[in-house]
């Protein structure tokens, strides 16, 4: 068995029959990482092989003793570096937290560990998740395994690159405006942003709290569903998590897959029209496979451009509040504060600790919340957010899902977006709606253009992750783009 490219659902079965193979699997994966990580730069922190092997051996002992069935026994998972991991450095790709080692696990990490998953490392990202390419990382950009001159997307670009390069079996990302779906689309992997409140944010280092969600990333739909099964669910430690019964996503996805209900699919007219020609053409091919069976109609998506503005106003405002905690006193960058005033110390810490993009967003966030601008920008963005939600509620009365290209462009060349950040902001136009209204959305591979991946996004009603998993599986079975590993 090729342990590097094997899907998680198969590995789980293999380890069920022969748990001792976990050690060989970990070794093979590390061989792969050692041979290509210098080219890809998917990780910020990679755990030492000896520590991982010890953890795997310990898991074997626990398994023997307790006979407890662990749903992710031995599975190596890459975790985005804004999710707190006890004892493992968690930097948010920022100098501000360069040496920060959390004393606790995020709830999603506790759940993964309880099911026998092994964290192999913390993946690169845009600094504090502010960016779409991993280029705002304070350390280095990650490279797209399909073309190393291009970005793997972002902000969860390290997680996506690790999957596409065969440096992890599954991964966790976080999505504030498309940060899971964007890199999934750019690397021919799968990524799911859950409904706001389905997955606990406890231990996720906040960027924009009303938009952030943690979600699964994988190389096929089955693994996404299995991973979501583990991380979803109410958590009293996160006051925004929703107390509802969580279904078995994997089983429910297969139930639908075998029953094959015909769904009403809305094709997002403007989001296709505004996409690059080659992206549009490739995404339409995937849409054709859906529409050969399901009922499809074009649907007009209102206020796409204004959504980008509302998104950035809200995200920057929330960031300016969330990032105030890095004062260098409790935690954050350390500067010498003898004989300096409180204000000077704070200014020094924030000026030295943050990169340009973060400083810009925090400062503009303070601007839109300041007297005279709060009602002109922030309040109006919140009103717009309600209007958009109501508009989509209306659309979702007619359609089960809305599909569009995940990204309107092909993976950008490294440096391209840094030169024109406004272009980067507008490239989020297809993904941000799901965050603004809190709906679930998935990105599945739709095809390739000149060797570069294109993703299809499927967005559904609240808590209807099962439907988007079903359609992702439907596309996967039709066009067979799954378990892909780039020839690095």
């Amino acid at each position, binding site marked *: 068995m090729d342990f590097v490219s094997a899907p998680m659902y198969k590995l789980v079965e293999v380890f069920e029959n022969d748990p001792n193979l976990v050690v060989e699997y970990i070794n093979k994966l590390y061989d792969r990482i050692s041979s290509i990580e210098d080219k890809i730069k998917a990780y910020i922190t990679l755990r030492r092989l000896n520590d991982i092997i010890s953890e795997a051996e310990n898991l074997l002992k626990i398994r023997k003793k307790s006979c407890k069935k662990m749903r992710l026994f031995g599975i190596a998972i890459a975790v985005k570096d804004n999710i707190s991991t006890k004892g493992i450095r968690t930097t948010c790709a920022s100098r501000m937290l360069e040496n920060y080692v959390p004393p606790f696990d995020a709830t999603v990490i506790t759940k993964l560990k309880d099911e026998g998953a092994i964290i192999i490392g913390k993946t690169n990202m845009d600094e504090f998740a502010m960016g779409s390419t991993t280029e705002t990382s304070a350390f280095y950009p990650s490279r797209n395994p399909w073309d190393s001159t291009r970005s793997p997307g972002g902000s969860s670009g390290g997680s996506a690159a690790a999957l596409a390069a065969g440096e992890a079996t599954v991964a966790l990302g976080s999505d504030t405006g498309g940060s899971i779906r964007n890199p999934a689309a750019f690397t021919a992997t799968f990524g799911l942003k859950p409904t706001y*409140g389905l997955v606990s944010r406890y231990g996720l280092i906040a960027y924009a709290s009303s938009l952030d969600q943690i979600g699964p990333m994988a190389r096929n739909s089955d693994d996404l569903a299995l991973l979501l099964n583990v991380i979803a669910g109410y958590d009293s430690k996160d006051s925004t998590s929703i107390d509802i019964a969580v279904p078995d996503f994997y089983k429910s996805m297969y139930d639908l897959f075998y029953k094959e209900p015909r769904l009403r699919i809305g094709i997002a007219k403007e989001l296709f029209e505004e996409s690059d020609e080659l992206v549009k053409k490739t995404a339409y091919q995937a849409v054709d496979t859906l529409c050969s069976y399901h009922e499809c109609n074009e649907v007009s998506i209102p206020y796409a451009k*204004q959504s980008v503005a509302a998104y950035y106003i809200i995200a920057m405002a929330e960031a300016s509040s969330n990032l105030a905690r890095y004062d260098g006193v409790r935690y954050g960058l350390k500067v010498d504060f003898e004989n*300096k005033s*409180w204000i000077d110390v704070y200014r020094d810490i924030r000026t030295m600790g943050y990169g340009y993009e973060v400083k810009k967003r925090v400062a503009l966030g303070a601007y839109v919340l300041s007297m005279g601008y709060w009602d002109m920008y922030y309040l109006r963005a919140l009103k717009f*957010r309600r209007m958009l939600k109501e508009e989509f509620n209306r659309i979702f009365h007619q359609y089960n899902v809305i599909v569009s290209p995940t990204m309107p462009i092909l993976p950008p060349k490294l440096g391209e977006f840094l030169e024109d950040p406004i272009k980067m902001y507008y490239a989020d136009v297809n993904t941000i709606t799901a965050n603004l209204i809190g709906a679930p959305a998935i990105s599945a591979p739709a095809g390739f253009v000149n060797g570069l991946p294109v993703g299809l996004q499927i967005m559904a009603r609240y808590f209807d992750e099962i439907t988007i998993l079903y359609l992702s599986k439907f596309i996967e079975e039709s066009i067979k783009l799954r378990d892909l590993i780039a020839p690095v």
Partner: protein
Amino acid sequence: MVYTSNDVIDRIERLALISFNDEERRKLLKELEKIIEMFNTVNMVEELDQWEPLYHVHDISLSLRDDNEVEEVDDERTMLRDNAILVNGYVKAPKTVT
């Protein structure tokens, strides 16, 4: 009074307690107008004032945990021990009066 982009940058530096160096300021000057222009597109949406602001996508009030004492590691204390300058158990902070 007409505010220039330089005035806006001075203002946000004061508001956010952040300084932009010369190179960052040059970049921001180039971007600022376009960003404000982008923000202003929200104000072009008609009849926006008829909508109530949306603070939580599910329109719910945030719940509070039951006030039960639980046996847990004191995360905050561990975090302070590892990250702050502690003097006799107190966090050392910069002077508020100079």
